[in-house]
C-alpha cells in the first residue's frame, strides 16, 4: 500500500522522501540502517558473512511462527498479544509429555530416525494445541471483558501464567530421566536437551550448505507454509470478518458480525500459534527451555512484528516476514561483532536487544491515540 501511494502522488523529491519515511516508519528505517551498518562492519572486520547469514535464516524460521501469532491477535482487535506466553506454556507441556512418552517407548514403532523426530514434534504440537485452544478461548473471553486495557492485562496474565507453571514444572510427574532434575530427583530441569527427542525435527531434513552458509529448507518451508495459510485465512470470509471486527467494531456489528466471537477467535488462533511456535523454536534451538525462559518472549515477538511495520491495530503477514528477519538479523550479527570489536564489554548485544525491543514497543504505544 505504501509504495502505491508514493508512486501515484506527484510531488517534489523532498516530499517523496518525507512520505517514504512516514510510510515506512522512522524506527523501521533506523533498524534497517543499523542492520546494513552491522553487515558492513562485519564485512570490514573480515567476519564470516555467509555463516552469519545462514544463522540469520535459521533464527528467522525459529522465531517466525511465534511472531506470526501476533497477526490474528492484532487483526481481531485485541492488539499485540503479549500473553502469547499462555500458548507457549501449552506447547511446552506438549513437548514435555511427548518426550516422556518417547522415553517410555511409545513411539518405538517408528523406526526411521528422521520420521521419528518429526512424529515426536507433531505429537508435541498436537498436545500443545489441545491445551492451548481451550486456554486461548478462556483467555479471549477474559480479554473481551477488559476492552481498552488488553495490553496491560495480557502482559500480567502472561507473567502470572508463566510463574504459575513454575510450580507445575517443579512437580511435573514424569518418568524420563532426561527430563528430571538430577540433584533432587524431582521436578523438571531448567533446560532439556532435545538431541534424543525432536531436536532438529524440521531443521535437519534437506539441510545443505553453500560454503559456510547452512540452509535449513525444512524449517523455512514450515514457516512459509504457516505464513501462507495465515494469508489464505485473511482472505477467507471468516478472516475478513475477524479483521473488520478488529479494525472497526461498529462497522462490523452493522454488518452482522459478532465482534466478541471474532475477538475470541483471534485470541485463540494466536494462542494456538504460540504453542506451535515454541515447538518449532525448541526443535531448532535444540533445547527445551522451561521455567522463566518464556517470560519475556511475548515482548520479543511483539517487538518483531512492530519492527516489520505493524501497528497495534494493523498487522499483515508481510510485517511478520520483514520484522522477524530484521530483528533476528541484527541480534545474530551484533553478538559476534560486539565480541570482536569490544572484547572487554560483555553485555552489548543484550543492551541492544533491550533498547530495540522495548524502544519499538514504546514507540508504537506513543503512536496510539491516548484515551480521552
Amino acid at each position, binding site marked *: 500500500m505504501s509504495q502505491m501511494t508514493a508512486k501515484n502522488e506527484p510531488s517534489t523529491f523532498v516530499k517523496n522522501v518525507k512520505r517514504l519515511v512516514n510510510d515506512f516508519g522512522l524506527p523501521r528505517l533506523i533498524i534497517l540502517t543499523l542492520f546494513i551498518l552491522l553487515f558492513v562492519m562485519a564485512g570490514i572486520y573480515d567476519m564470516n558473512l555467509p555463516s552469519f547469514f545462514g544463522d540469520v535464516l535459521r533464527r528467522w524460521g525459529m522465531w517466525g511462527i511465534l511472531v506470526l501469532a501476533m497477526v490474528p491477535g492484532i487483526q481481531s482487535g485485541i492488539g499485540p498479544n503479549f500473553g502469547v506466553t499462555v500458548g507457549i506454556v501449552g506447547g511446552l507441556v506438549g513437548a514435555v509429555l511427548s518426550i516422556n512418552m518417547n522415553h517410555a517407548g511409545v513411539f518405538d514403532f517408528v523406526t526411521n530416525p528422521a520420521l521419528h523426530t518429526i512424529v515426536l514434534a507433531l505429537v508435541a504440537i498436537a498436545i500443545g494445541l489441545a491445551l492451548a485452544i481451550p486456554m486461548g478461548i478462556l483467555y479471549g473471553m477474559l480479554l473481551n471483558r477488559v476492552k481498552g486495557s488488553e495490553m496491560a492485562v495480557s*502482559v500480567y496474565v502472561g507473567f502470572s501464567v508463566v510463574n504459575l507453571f513454575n510450580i507445575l514444572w517443579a512437580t511435573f510427574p514424569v518418568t524420563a530421566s532426561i527430563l528430571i532434575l538430577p540433584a533432587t530427583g524431582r521436578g523438571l530441569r531448567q533446560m532439556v536437551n532435545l538431541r534424543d527427542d525432536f531436536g532438529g525435527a524440521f531443521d535437519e531434513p534437506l539441510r545443505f550448505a553453500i560454503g559456510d552458509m547452512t540452509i535449513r529448507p525444512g524449517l523455512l518451508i514450515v514457516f512459509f507454509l504457516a505464513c501462507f495459510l495465515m494469508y489464505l485465512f485473511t482472505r477467507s470470509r471468516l478472516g475478513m470478518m475477524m479483521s473488520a471486527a478488529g479494525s472497526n467494531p461498529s462497522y462490523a456489528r452493522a454488518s452482522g458480525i459478532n465482534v466478541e466471537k471474532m475477538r475470541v477467535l483471534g485470541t485463540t488462533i494466536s494462542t494456538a500459534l504460540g504453542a506451535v511456535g515454541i515447538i518449532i523454536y525448541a526443535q531448532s534451538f535444540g533445547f527445551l527451555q522451561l521455567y522463566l525462559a518464556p517470560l519475556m518472549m511475548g*515482548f520479543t515477538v511483539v517487538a518483531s512484528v512492530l519492527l516489520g511495520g505493524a501497528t497495534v491495530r494493523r498487522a499483515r503477514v508481510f510485517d511478520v516476514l520483514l520484522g522477524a528477519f530484521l530483528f533476528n538479523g541484527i541480534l545474530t550479527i551484533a553478538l559476534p561483532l560486539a565480541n570482536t570489536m569490544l572484547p*572487554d564489554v560483555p*553485555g552489548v548485544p*543484550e543492551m541492544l536487544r533491550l*533498547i530495540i525491543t522495548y524502544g519499538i514497543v514504546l514507540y508504537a504505544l506513543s503512536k496510539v491515540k491516548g484515551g480521552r
Partner: protein
Amino acid sequence: MNNKVRDFLFENKVVLLFLSITLFAFWASGLSTVVFFSELFTRFGRNTFMVLALLIPVIAGLGLNFGIVVGAMAAQISMFLVILWGGDGVSGIFSVALLATPIAIVLGYLVGRLFNSMKGSEMIGGMVTSLFADGFYQFLFLFVFGGIIPIAYARLMTSTGVGVLNAIDLGDMRQALDNISMFHILNVSFFVMLAFVALLLIYRLVKKQPIKMFGPTGLIKPLVILGFLLIGYILTWTVTPFLLFTYENRLNGVYASRLVAIIISAVQIYHIIRDIRDEKRPGLPIKRFVILGLVAVGFLVTLLPEISNGLAHVRIPVFTYMIIGGLCLFIKWFINTRLGQNMRTIGQDRNVATAAGINVDRTRIIAMIMSTVLAAYGQIIIIQSFGVMTTYGAHMNVGLYAIAALLVGGATVTRASVKHAIIGVLLFHSLFILAPAASTNLMGAALFGEYFRVFAANAVIALALIMHAWKRVKKRKNEKAKATAA
C-alpha cells in the same frame, strides 16, 4: 447491618485473602514470632518508602507507576558516583540523595512527557519504559563507566577496567540511615526547629506582618514542637539514663508499639474533644471510638507472651521509620494543597479538569517527577539497608514488588492511600518471609514458596488490572445508560 458486613468483606477481599494466606503460611512455617517479627520490621523499614512513592501517580490518575524503576536507577547512578568520589557514612548517603534528586527530576520529567503521549496506557507504558531504560542503564554501567570514562577504582570496576562490578559494597554507608542515633535526631531537629522559628519571626518582622499566635498560620504549633524538643534536649544533658537511651539507634519493639499506641490514642482523643467542642458533624466520633477500642485490643494482644517475646527482639531503625512517617504525613498534607486537589481532579476526570482551567499535562508531569524522586529516595533506603548494591539487579524487581504490596493492601488502580501502603507492605512481606519456610514444611522444598510468592505478586497485579478494566467497561456502559435514561 448484614449488607454492611457483606460490603466490608467485598471491599477488602484482597486484603482478607492475603491475611488468610499469611495466617495459614505462618501456621505452616513453624517460624517463631521472634524470627518473624524482627524480619518483618526490617523489611517494613526497607520497603515502605518505595511503596509510598506510588501513591501520588495513583491520585493523579496515572495508575500504578511502573516507572518507579527509573527513579531507582537514578538512585543507583548517584550511589555509584558518590562512592567513586569518596563519599561515605551518613554524609555519603545524604550526598547520594542530593545527587539523585536532579537526575530523578529529569528522568521523571521525561517519563511524564512520555506518559502524556499515551494517556490511558500509562501502566503498560511504564513497564516497557523501565525495561527500555534498563538498556541504557546497562550501557552506562557496562560500557560508559570504564569504557569511555576511564575509572581506576578496583572496588567498583571489573578486572578488565571496563564496566562496573555487579555487587558494590557500601562500606560505611551500610545502614547509615538506620544507624543514626536518637540523640543526633533530637539534637539536629531541635536546632532546625529553632532556626525555623527564628526565620519565621524574622520573615514576619521584615514583611511587617502581625505576629499571630493562633489560627492556621499562627506560631503556636511550631512553638509547642520546639518546646517538646527543648525538653528532650535538656533531658539528654541532665538525665544520664535518658542520654544513654538516646544513644541507641534502634528502638525495642515493645517500646515502639506502646509509643505508637499512645500517639494514636492521643490524636484520637484530641479529635474527639475538638469535634465535641465544635459540635461538628454529629455521629463521626463513633469511628474514633472504634479506633481507640482497636488500639486497646492491640495493646492487650501485645501482652500475650508469644507476641511480647517476639516484639522484645524487634529492633526498629528509628530514623528510617521517622522518614517513612514523615512521608505519610507529607502525602496527607499534600493532598490538601491546591496542587494536590488539582491532581485529585485530574485523576477523576481529565475533561472536567481541563474545563475548570487546570493544566492537565503539566500537573501530570509534576506527579511523575514527585513519584520518581520519591522512588529514588526509596531505593536509597533499600540499598543502604542491604549494605550492598546489586548494580544490574537491584532496580529490576522494585516496581513489581512495590506495586504488588500496594495492591495486597487493598489499593486499586484508581484508589490508593497511606493505609493501603502500610497494610500491604506488612501482608506482602509477611508472605515473603513465610512462604519458603511454609513450603519447606509442607512440600519438602523451599523452592515452591519462592515460586508461589513471585506468582502471587504477578497474579495480584493481573487481578487488579483486570478488575480496573472491567470496572471501566461497566462504567462506560452505565454512563451510556444514564445518558439515555435522562
